[in-house]
């Protein structure tokens, strides 16, 4: 990825900080049946998306801390579908996951706000995707919550259309 200007970076940090609220908005008024509905057998329900956000966002926080404190940090990939199955995303209440997601973003944003130019260029190696800088991490996670909020909205629109609701109004 190309280098990010300081101005762009500020925008990405603001988007990162807004990610939790975006997911809260996407979930507003969701019914229990809707929360657990999967658009396809292998696709995630909204509940599973929330647990994915909690785990992936806490792992992102760890990755940034590794990049900032280790030279040549090794960033380990993980199998997000295996997490969903083995960590029982489908049957766990989601409130602690929402809190973990919010708290991981708040503490990690504290770090984004004080990082120096040299910090942004610190780079480790991701086990699957190769060189992985702090700047790239910000680009990835600035989009991550918004992308999953959109996924939740698509689930809800499809659920609504299939249950005689408003149709695809999300």
């Amino acid at each position: 990825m190309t280098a990010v200007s300081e101005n762009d970076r500020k925008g990405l940090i603001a988007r990162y900080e807004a990610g939790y609220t975006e997911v809260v908005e996407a979930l507003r008024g969701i019914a229990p049946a809707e929360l657990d509905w999967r658009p396809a057998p292998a696709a995630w329900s909204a509940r599973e998306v929330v647990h994915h956000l909690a785990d992936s966002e806490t792992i992102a926080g760890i990755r940034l801390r590794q990049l900032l404190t280790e030279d040549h940090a090794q960033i380990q990939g993980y199998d997000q579908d295996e997490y969903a199955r083995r960590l029982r995303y489908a049957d766990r209440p989601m409130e602690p996951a929402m809190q973990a997601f919010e708290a991981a973003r708040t503490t990690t944003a504290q770090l984004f706000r004080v990082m120096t130019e040299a910090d942004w260029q610190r780079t480790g190696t991701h086990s699957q995707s190769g060189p992985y800088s702090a700047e790239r991490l910000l680009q990835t996670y600035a989009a991550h919550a918004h992308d999953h909020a959109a996924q939740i909205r698509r689930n809800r629109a499809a659920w609504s259309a299939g249950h005689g609701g408003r149709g695809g109004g999300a």
Partner: protein
Amino acid sequence: VTREERDRLLARYRTGYAELTDALGGTTPAEIDWAPGSGEWSVRQIVHHLADADTFAAARLRRILTESDPAIPAYDEQVLAERLAYAVRPIEPALQVVDAVRAATVQVLDRLGEADWQRSGRHSEMGPYSVERWLEFNAAHAYDHAAQIRQVRAAWAARRPG
């Protein structure tokens, strides 16, 4: 580890956040930033350490439960404290991390089967690292640091005139 011992450890892990907030009750701004000696952590630094340590621990548990004998790399908590500005960051979000990470991880622990408890990874310094060993360590960790906070506060109170 017997079932009774495991239940006792689970209860300690579950109540770690309450123990921490109890130790912090009524802390003043000056008190929270006082370090008892050179190189020792202030209360603020201890709280940030707990937030990061609990987060790393939660990720380690998830890796042990989803991968076959994963490598568990150690990290340097002193380097984290220095480079991640523990001394100056507000502690409220860190406290929320401890609360939420533990609550989410309790959900995972409550759903483990007997085979899950026997899973393990390889810690870079400690060697074989089972789910049971993970629980033993993390059940004690918040309590140990809550005790440390009480010691720092007692020392701070003792040094004040009158």
